[in-house]
């Protein structure tokens, strides 16, 4: 190493140090440079299309189980039984939010658009079981039993109506089938 390179090294060290210190001094003096957000007190604005926790609006859900099939990590599980009006009735709809990777495929694929991402991102639990979101409060067995009962009732009613129909074939009064679905929808 020649003397020139040696002196150059020294000059470079001094100049670059001074330059760096000028930059840090600017940051140190200017309070506007602070980017910290005091999280629990202040929050970020949630952007549009934010993929937070999943929420299923079970009123509009048609139990097609498309979300279950498309989920890459199998975090959604669904049980449904056929109700008295031939429509599917959800017995249980669980999302294991601890396993979900927020890819959004289930939301994209949902035909009635009942499954949606919310803006929620704060959750803590002491056990993994608490991370499973249950969208139907009732026990799946209870729902199934109730639906089965309703189906049986409806069948019995239909049977009775048919018998009545046959018995009074000439009678003008025909039991309206429109009342039955209303009855069956009630438990939901």
């Amino acid at each position, binding site marked *: 190493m020649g003397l020139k390179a040696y002196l150059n*090294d*020294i000059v470079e*060290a001094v100049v670059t*140090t001074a330059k*760096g*210190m000028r*930059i*840090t*001094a600017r*940051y*140190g*003096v200017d*309070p506007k*440079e*602070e*980017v*910290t957000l*005091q999280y629990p007190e202040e929050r970020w604005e949630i952007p549009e299309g934010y993929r937070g926790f999943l929420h299923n609006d079970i009123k509009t859900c048609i139990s097609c189980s498309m979300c279950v099939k498309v989920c890459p990590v199998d975090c959604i599980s669904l049980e449904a039984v056929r109700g008295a009006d031939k429509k599917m009735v959800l017995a249980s709809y669980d999302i294991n939010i601890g396993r979900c990777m927020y890819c959004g495929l289930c939301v994209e694929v949902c035909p009635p658009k009942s499954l949606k991402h919310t803006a929620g991102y704060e959750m803590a639990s002491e056990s993994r079981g608490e991370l499973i979101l249950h969208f139907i409060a009732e026990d799946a067995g209870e729902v199934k039993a109730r639906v089965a009962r309703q189906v049986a009732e409806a069948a019995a009613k239909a049977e009775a109506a048919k018998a009545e129909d046959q018995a009074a074939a000439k009678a003008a009064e025909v039991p309206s089938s429109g009342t039955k679905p209303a009855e069956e929808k009630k438990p939901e």
Partner: protein
Amino acid sequence: MEALAVSLVNAVPLLAGVPLWTVTLLLMVMVAAVILVFALTFEGVGSLVLRKVAGDIQARIGPNRVGPNGMLQFLADGVKLVLKEDIIPANADRLLFKLAPYFVFVGSFAAFVVVPFGVGLIAADLNIGIYYVMAVTSLVVIGVLLAGWASNNKWALLGGMRAAAQIVSYEIPVGMALIPAVLIAGSLSLQDIVRSQGGLLGIFGWNLFHNPFTFFSFFLYFTAAQAETNQTPFDLPEAESELVSGYNVEYSGIRFGLFFLAEFGDMFIVAALATACFLGGWNVPFFNAGTLPWIWGSLLSLGVFLGKAFTMVLIMMWVRWTLPRLRVDQLMRMAWKYLVPLTFVNLLGVSLWLLVFKGKGIPGMIASLFG
């Protein structure tokens, strides 16, 4: 200290019957306690300021939860350090492991003895002041090396070895960069060095402006001293990203606290020496603080000294959060190929200057031109 004891005994008639050595001993303990309290307070507040400065420079806020605006954070840290469990690894060398923090702590704190805080405010005005500081801070090497060895941990050992290499290497440029001040004052005593920078020239009486060589030697000293005390651009012994935490990785609780305190103590010692040797020490510009009544003169000079020293500490923090850490080979190259030759050339320059111009500095010559 004995002279002070004699004057105290003469001043207070109640003490007439007490043997002199008791009074001297008591005074010594009191002075030691005062200095210890000062040092601990400095370290507490210093750590808070360090974190606040770091926050500002890194576009963060820094601690702001404990007390108003985070002011009591250092108390929380201190309580935490004291209360945490003191763990000694199963395979550690127990005796050396326990001994190491005291070496580091003592090495850093013993240097406070000769820091010239004010006109008469110095624990012991040793006639070998600078030499004593250099010698006693070398104790840190032993402590750090012991800590690294006794931990029986590869990271700690690497950190300790690095520290030994680094501190021993940088002691040479530090000493060589301080000698110009000694040459100008003609004494190793820090009080004499500070007094030699007083007079009617104001800040131009400082050794910093004495001649071009002393100007450079201030910066050389500041750089080398940061390396010698393992401050951040040169904190290879505790390089977090390579060595986890370096030589103190196995320490916890109060033993870790001692290392931590010693680090801040070193910071103050470097700032204090830079102030005393190059920035005029406790000299109040254009004014002789020694002519005031003892109390006021001491307070005024103490304020001036601490103001300068704390400014130097702030600059050290500023450097610390600006520069990235050097590599080991870069560090060694900087010591042996750059700082050592430069300080030697500088020392030669100062000596020649003093020989040729009969000990007069540039400001002094300009002043003598105008009578």
